[in-house]
Structure formats: C-alpha cells, structure tokens
C-alpha cells in the first residue's frame, strides 16, 4: 500500500471513530442521557420511604394538636394510599418533587420530602392535584407530559375548584424542600404555613414586597393549576422549637 493510501485510510478510520463518538454525544444530548441533574425521574425506589418513617414525617408537618387526629397518606408503588385514618379533616402527607412548580429545576429531585398537613378545604381541593401528578409521574410521564396533562385537566374542569380558607402547615424539622440553602442558617427547609387563593396578582397581597411577611415563590405562577400559594414563616417547628425567620 502506498503511503498516501495509508494516510487516507488512517484519516478515514479516525474520522469514522470521531464521527461515531460525535454521534453518541449528540444522541446523548438529544435523549437527556448527559449528566444533567434531575432531568428525569429517578428510579422509583429513591422516592419511597419506610412506611412508619413516612407517617412520622408527615405528622411532623403540623403541631401535634392538629396532626395527631389527621389522616396520613403514604406513597406506595401505585400512588398515595392511606397510612392512618384520621378524624379531624386534616390530611398529612409527604409530597415528592413532582408537586413542585414546573419551572423548578429540582422537579425530579428524589431527595425532596415536602411534609405537609392540609386543612379540610385544601385536602378536598389541593390534594387532588398532588394525586393526579403522582399518578402521572408513576406512569412514567415526563415533566412536559405531566404539565400538559394537568393543563388539560384544568381546562376540562376535572379538578375541584379551590375552596375559600384552603391552607396548610409545613413545620416539619426533617423535611427537605430543596438542595439550596433557603434560610439564614442555610437549611434546606423552613417552617411555614401556606394559604391558597385563586390566581391573583401577588402584589395585591403585598407579597414579596420589601419587609413584607408574606412571600410567594416566583416560580409558581399558577401554571397550569390556577392557584396562588402564599407563604408565611411561623418561627417555630411543629415541636415548638425555634425556626429561622428569614
């Protein structure tokens, strides 16, 4: 073989190798196989918890005077199921990442544990959103597919209308809401209550104004569920111990 043929052949082989490599990279990008954190649902086991631990975490979302008589829901492989029957109308649950705003980069963060106790009005009107999103997530739907399905459910009025007075407690010391430090001590959690309203301009409540005690997550734009969620820090965890106020 002539030298020029060897050079050409070598070039072609390397080009082929590089081409295959490049094709793999492009394919990986296209299918989200590259290492983008929380780009897709993690294996289901990562979201599941020991049942007793989940019940305890769920109850710790509210002061004992509320949560000890609350119904508790726990996540199973088919969705949420009753872990304990209650009698005061409150429902405590540990929500997973897929109930986050769709704009949240941690939408699939399997470490998230949002312990919440809903009052009866919220249990009837907010929890159905949680259940529907959970059903879709466990069915393997992508974030975009879940968002589209929720949008369709809103348009078809398949979700109950928000009841006045819907609110919840999120005062669990052991909850994990985000990888980011969100309080003055860098915690991944904060003790707070949330109040739900129909979609209104947050400024109408004075939310997120300088020194206002009412805040709203700017990522939560009532999209697609037409609900605003206003938060207020409580200053104490559910066990009565002090919690950060900023």
């Amino acid at each position, binding site marked *: 073989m002539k030298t020029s043929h060897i050079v050409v052949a070598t070039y072609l082989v390397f080009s082929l190798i590089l081409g295959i490599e490049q094709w793999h990279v492009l394919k990986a990008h296209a299918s989200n196989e590259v290492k983008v954190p929380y780009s897709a649902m993690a294996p289901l086991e990562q979201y599941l918890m020991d049942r007793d631990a989940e019940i305890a975490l769920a109850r710790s979302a509210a002061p004992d005077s509320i949560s000890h008589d609350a119904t508790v829901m726990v996540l199973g492989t088919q969705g949420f199921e009753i872990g304990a029957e209650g009698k*005061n109308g409150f429902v405590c649950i540990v929500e997973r990442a897929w109930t986050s705003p769709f704009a949240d980069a941690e939408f699939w963060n399997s470490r998230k544990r949002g312990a919440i106790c809903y009052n009866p009005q919220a249990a009837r009107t907010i929890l159905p959103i949680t259940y529907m999103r959970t059903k879709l997530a466990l069915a393997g739907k992508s974030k975009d597919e879940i968002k589209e399905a929720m949008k369709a459910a809103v348009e078809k009025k398949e979700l109950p209308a928000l009841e006045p007075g819907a609110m919840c407690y999120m005062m669990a010391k052991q909850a994990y809401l985000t990888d980011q430090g969100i309080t003055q001590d860098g915690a991944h959690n904060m003790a707070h209550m949330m109040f739900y309203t129909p979609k209104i301009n947050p400024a109408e409540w004075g939310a997120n104004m300088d020194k206002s005690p009412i805040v709203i997550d700017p990522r939560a734009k009532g999209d697609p569920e037409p609900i605003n969620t206003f938060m207020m820090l409580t200053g104490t965890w559910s066990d009565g111990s002090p919690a950060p106020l900023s």
Partner: protein
Amino acid sequence: MNPTVIKAIALGAFVLGAWQMKAEDSKNPYPTTMTSIDPYLMDRDAEIAMARSAAPPSIAKDATVMVLGRHGYETAVEGKNGFVCAVGRSWDLQKNNPAFWDPKIHGPICLSAPGARSFLPIYFKKTELAIAGRSNTQIEDAIIDGIAKGELPTPEPGSVSYMLSKQGYLNAGIKGPWLPHVMFFVPEIDPKALGSDLGDDVPLDAHEEKIGRYTTIDVPVSNWSDGTPVNPNTDGHAH
C-alpha cells in the same frame, strides 16, 4: 411565637380585632352613644402617619390613606397600589364590648384592594351611624340588616390586611398594639378547620365573625412595619 399570647387573640372586627374583649373590664365606663366626635379626632398628619405605619413602607407608601373627619372618613392621600390604610376607631367592635365607645382605641390597618372593597363599606357605614348618634345596638343591627339585604359586602378572595404598627392601641389590658399580625378574611368557616382552637401549639388564631359572615385568620409575625423585631418579653403582654 408565644402560643399563650396567640391564644389571647379573639379577633373578629375589621380594624381592631375583638381579641381585646377578653381583657376588658366588665363594667362599661362609656355612654351608649357617641356624645361628641371630638375625642375621636386626631391631628391629620399624625393620623396619616399612624395609618401608614400599619404596613411595611414598600406597601404603605403607595397606599391610599383615609382619615376620620367630622362627617366620616375622607381621603387624605390618593394611592396607586390598591391598598387602603386607615386608623380604625372603637365602634368597629362588637356591640357588647365595653370599649365600644372608648376614644383611646386606635387600630392602624392597611387593607389589600379586595379587603378594602369587602370591609371598608361596612366600617364606613358603622362610622356614619356612630356619628349620627346611633347606639351600639342600632349600629350592629343595621350592619346585620345591610348584609342580609346584600347592601353590604362579604369577603372577596384575596382579602388581607396588615396590622404591623407599633402605634396602635387595641386593648385596655395591653394598652398598646398587641403583636404585629396579618389578617386574612375568608367566608365563614369553622375556625377548627384552620387548626385554630385545637391547641396552644398552633401558630394562628381564627375567629368566626357571625355578624359580618366571615372568618378572620390572624397570623402573628416577627417584625413591626419598621423592620424591628418583636420583643417576646414585652410586646403583646398585658400591662
């Protein structure tokens, strides 16, 4: 927040929060009607400042401010953010409250636009009747009648108010502003459905206001409107 202090709230009325009732003497030193409006009037600038102090400056600076005049409330400052700030007087209390005509009562409040639409018509009607010489019973009856006939409103969604002023005087027992708090107003629901009255560890207090057909949710907060923190050893305690 100190739960025993929170439980001292009984709230209710638009401006003042009927929580003061529990601390009042049962003997009523006041007449049954307003004999003169003079004791209730304030220096106009002082009233504007007090009204604005109900909310953080970021909200209050662009709010409409209403002040009490001889013929009722009037606009002292035109706002542009929908909030309305005012200093409520004693006739917003329930009729059996001994402080119903106490001129020392001053409740600075800033209401969201829906809150203003929901509650100011009721409070202004009370004021009109008070100045016209009606008794506490007549005032309350008129409000009940007005709501029943649909002439007076019930709470709109988004009705919220700020009471973060250090300057208020809500209670003869506390002789001051109690604690800074935010009040939400919702159509009448059982306070227990909000966690209120279930235990001293609950960080809010709700009260069913049967006359106005709404429920208030009081949430104490950690800072006054000027940004200074609550002193748990002194603020909100009876003197």
